């Protein structure tokens, strides 16, 4: 295990170096997210002010604000652009650099992206969590911070990231076979935005639909960590959802291995 980590640390380093190069990209990504976050806020503010009930589907307006901010944070933490990177490497042939080394293709990606994240996300996660706590305290009048809960949230985010990572890798391989990556990627983001509760909390959906969506892998992305942070899950229910995340992670991990085997055979490295 230790040796394994040693093998992959260079990829972490490479990831950290990349961030320096593509900082502007990242800033735009964050800006886009922040705007989406503001839009959500105004929509929900309008919904709540026109409604008569103080709480809708278990969410009060202050809780909705916390939900929106947490969604924003979680989205950033678990973001993965594997689908795009896989496609690019295959297209321009630099995939051979990974192929001729005795390392696992997926793992090199994973560690590279982790390096990427280490250098950006810690910088935003800490202030954001403090912000969330301040909002919660001000809005409810009592300090709600719970260290154990934060740990659970971090665990759940880690699982969510891995689900997202392997899902994206799978998507990248499939897109490689069917070739229309760009359009498919756009569609994917919209669909996931809806299915993962980023647009509307899943509890706002009709019961039957909510049940289905909660089981789908997309809820394991942002929704589960946010619900955990907001202490909407407890006891057995909590562990069920974390277990479900672990299940989807393993599922996509296995699927990515299979798809890799299948697509490496069809690879036609260009250039040279």
């Amino acid at each position, binding site marked *: 295990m230790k040796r394994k980590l040693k093998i992959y640390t260079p990829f972490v380093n490479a990831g950290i170096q990349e961030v320096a190069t593509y900082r502007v990209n990242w800033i735009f990504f964050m800006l886009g997210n922040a705007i989406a976050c503001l839009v959500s806020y105004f929509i929900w503010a309008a919904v709540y002010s026109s409604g008569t009930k103080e709480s809708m589907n278990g969410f009060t307006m202050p809780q909705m604000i916390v939900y929106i901010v947490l969604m924003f944070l979680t989205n950033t933490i678990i973001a993965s652009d594997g689908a795009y990177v896989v496609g690019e490497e295959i297209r321009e*042939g630099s995939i051979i650099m990974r192929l001729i080394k005795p390392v696992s293709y997926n793992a090199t990606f994973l560690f590279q992206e982790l390096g990427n994240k280490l250098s950006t996300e810690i910088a935003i996660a800490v202030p954001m969590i403090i912000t969330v706590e301040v909002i919660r305290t001000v809005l409810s009048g009592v300090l709600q911070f719970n260290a154990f809960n934060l740990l659970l949230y971090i665990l759940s985010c880690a699982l969510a990231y891995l689900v997202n990572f392997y899902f994206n890798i799978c998507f990248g391989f499939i897109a490689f076979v069917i070739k229309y990556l760009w359009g498919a990627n756009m569609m994917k983001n919209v669909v996931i935005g809806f299915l993962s509760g980023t647009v509307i909390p899943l509890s706002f959906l009709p019961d039957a639909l909510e049940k289905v969506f909660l089981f789908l892998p997309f809820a394991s992305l942002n929704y589960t960590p946010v619900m955990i942070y907001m202490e909407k899950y407890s006891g057995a229910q909590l562990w069920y959802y974390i277990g479900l995340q672990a299940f989807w992670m393993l599922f996509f991990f296995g699927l990515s291995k299979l798809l890799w085997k299948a697509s490496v055979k069809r*690879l*036609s490295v260009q250039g040279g």
Partner: protein
Amino acid sequence: MIHVENLRKEFKKTVKDPGLKGSLKSLFKPKSEKVVAVDNISFKVAEGEILGFIGPNGAGKSTVIKMLTGILTPTSGSCTINGKNPTQNRKSYVKEIGVVFGQRTQLWWDLPLRETYGVLKEIYEVPEDSYKKRMAFLNEVLELDDFISSPVRTLSLGQRMRADIAASLLHSPKVLFLDEPTIGLDVVVKDNIRKAIEHINEQEKTTVILTTHDLADIEQLSKRMVMIDKGTKVFDGSIAGLKSKYGQIRELYFETDVKNAAEVLGYAEHFSLSSDDLSVEPEGNSVKVRFNSSIVPVSDMLSYTLNKINVSDINVKGADIEEIIRRLYEQGVD
């Protein structure tokens, strides 16, 4: 060591008519076309041998190397290297080989070279003491010292190539694949790289397969070469063998005062030679004649020329390897 049998690779190319209309059409009804890049190639390489691979642009050299290194899966046929099949069990296979693609680097673009080697040491599990020895050795033969602390992206082409070759040798591979390792290098660097390859081959019995467009690489490094053209093998043997098989072309050169010497001599009619076997290039008051000496012996050519006109200077050269290859590339091999 290396067994290649009936290796074949087909690519599917999607063809698209030009323009927007073509794009739309191909979106709904993609047409694809089969390209045979490598067509039933077989050869063997013994342990410790250096094999040179030559052929015109697009012949399929790089495609063969990609199959041998496990990057591409053959459409049919097989290759076995050191008893292993490259596409099965990739990770354990690539540990035993070193690969350099001249046109692209395998080093980390942003890392200083020294760190890159540190990384490779971990990846290939090279023990500390042999790593130290190895680095000292590579430093000596490839002279990496001048740029070892610079990031890879700042290296010049020749420096990068030396760095890449060193990287491919760090783990003492049993087989080394080099796809155009001397592309774009100056004469001194080329020479250094050839010496390094030679040295490693002698010292460690490393089997080497290299492709190149520079025949001097082959002349200096390998006793044997394989020539491919349009995906098929057209020659397999030594350079001397190629010379004796295709090297009947001689070059006659003379100076004369006679105007229109070429017309006066009329070699083609006199010896009934086709344009494949004869070319005449008058230039000022000198004439260059290339002819096939297996049809017209050199002595006949000389005596005919000397009897017909007055010449002031005359000599006959055997064809050099460049000339032979040029003819083979232009006309194909029968």
